[in-house]
């Protein structure tokens, strides 16, 4: 089971019969999105080539925080198929809108593939560790 904890945020892989699930926690929505992205890249075994950097502008709007999370991660799934991955997220999150710059590089290795990020049992909840959510990926 893969996991990571950095200060007040982190993720932990949860057992799922067929797919993948990731429990993520962070103090606020912006940090939750970024931590979920980092966890997803770890599950996928993404390797990038820093000599081929890329920067992209991203703007998303959703009907609620959960939808914003799904849209953000699905955007990264699409970019991965275009062979780009990101490690720096300069984002501004206002309510259920997101805008900012993503910095990353060309993907040169990836061990797994995600079909989609799902809404299955998806609910961002306030807990002892700030915001917490479990995301299920279709693989």
């Amino acid at each position, binding site marked *: 089971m893969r996991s990571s904890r950095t200060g007040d945020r982190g993720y932990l892989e949860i057992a799922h*019969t067929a797919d993948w699930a990731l429990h993520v926690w962070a103090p606020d929505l912006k940090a939750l999105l970024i931590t979920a992205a980092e966890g997803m890249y770890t599950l996928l075994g993404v390797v990038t080539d820093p000599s081929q950097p890329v920067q992209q502008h991203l703007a998303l709007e959703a009907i609620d925080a959960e*939808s914003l999370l799904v849209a953000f991660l699905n955007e990264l799934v699409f970019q991965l198929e275009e062979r780009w991955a990101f490690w720096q997220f300069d984002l501004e999150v206002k309510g259920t809108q997101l805008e900012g710059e993503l910095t990353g590089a060309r993907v040169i290795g990836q061990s797994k593939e995600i079909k989609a990020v799902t*809404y299955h*049992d998806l609910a961002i909840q306030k807990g002892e560790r700030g915001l917490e959510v479990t995301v299920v990926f279709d693989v």
Partner: protein
Amino acid sequence: MIQLQSFTRISDYEWEIPRTFRQDMRVPVRVFASRRLLENALGDKSIEQAVNAATLPGLVGRVVVMPDVHQGYGFPIGGVAATRYPEGVISPGGIGYDINCGVRLLATTLEVGEAEPYFKDLIRALDEYCPSGVGAEGGMRLSEAELDQACREGARWAQKRGMASEQDLRRTEEGGCLDGADPTKVSKRAKERGRSQLGTLGAGNHFLEVGIVEQVFDAHAAGAMGLLEGCLTLSIHCGSRGFGHQICTDYVQELQGAVNRYGIRLPDRELVCAPLDSPEGQAYLAAMRAAANYAFLNRQLLAHQARLAFEAVLAGKVANWHLHQVYDIAHNIGKIETHEIDGQRVKVCVHRKGATRAFGPGAPGLPEEYARVGQPVLVPGSMGTASWVLVGTEESMMRSFGSSCHGAGRVLSRNAAKRSVRGEQLQRELEADGILLRAGSMAGLAEEAPSAYKDVDEVVETVCGAGIARKVARLRPLLVVKG
């Protein structure tokens, strides 16, 4: 909490959760399973997911669960649900992200002994001709106009270009093309993803498998399919690739707002849906059909490429290497069909997610050669285990919306599978059993280990014991290419 006591036992192979089990259920849940498989299914959230699915507006009859069921997202994998057309709903999550993921079976009259000296060359050629693995792209990159045409025509697109025979199309569910596909309902992003992925297998549990017909149980049906004991077969398992994934993603997102507009309350947001006769429901139906046609075409192109691989290796060396089509079926799809429910003929939208259509003898839409024996049902195993060819029955038409199981069904999580065996060790074990293997990644291979799946023979005994399918032949794997 759902327990064994929550079920009413109907027979050795059928169990039911009544509609009264939970206040929001609109229909009962009927599970086809032996007691052991049912107990197994209670080990994860599959049955709870089936109960959630039983809350969808417009459901008729019952939600049906197959013995290969396992936990999915929203719907369980191995679930069938039918909603009244046109006022019932359609749910993208009830069909899945890999729209028209399915299986194609081809067969030969080539005896295994004659081909065996060329097995290493054959698996290498199949791997080379049929791109697989993470991020795989095919040899063709279509323009948007060509892709739109391909989505309207499905496997017929390949026939026009000399890559499919009339028999291939005749022996494909719906002739390899669903009417009503509308590429204008597909996002630009989905098209971007779809343009370069035709003719590719993908990763995960998708595979190409050369097998041998080990045992025939129904000589008449096997004869109609051209399945001969001791001869080689080829199975192809894949779907609509990034094109279908993106279409489902787009509509699951878009319909989040629609459920509020239509006042639909759901226990899980992944079950998001819209009335079939609403603009949103019609748009998804048309886009889903485009993805289904893409998948039919994808498997057709892979079959063409596999034939080229067979020719490259075996032409001039064996008497007859020709691969003829047995059948091609979808196991993640939504179809408008007419079924008898409580004595009435009712037009419904059948959601099959990890379930195979299993039409019985005399059902509409079967090619002439299968009209009397029933539709072939293709049940792949799990690399090291058997695969099965079954046929649908009159009983399946009455009791499971003409549906049956789609495979063995997972029982171990991917991490648990990896903990149980390493990819390299598994490859050695399979080779010791006479199964050659090529895989994109050893970790991915371990996740798909046979031990991660239920016993496919037990699944097949269950659907046949319940009467919703009948055995035709058992296939044993010889060469496996995994994405």
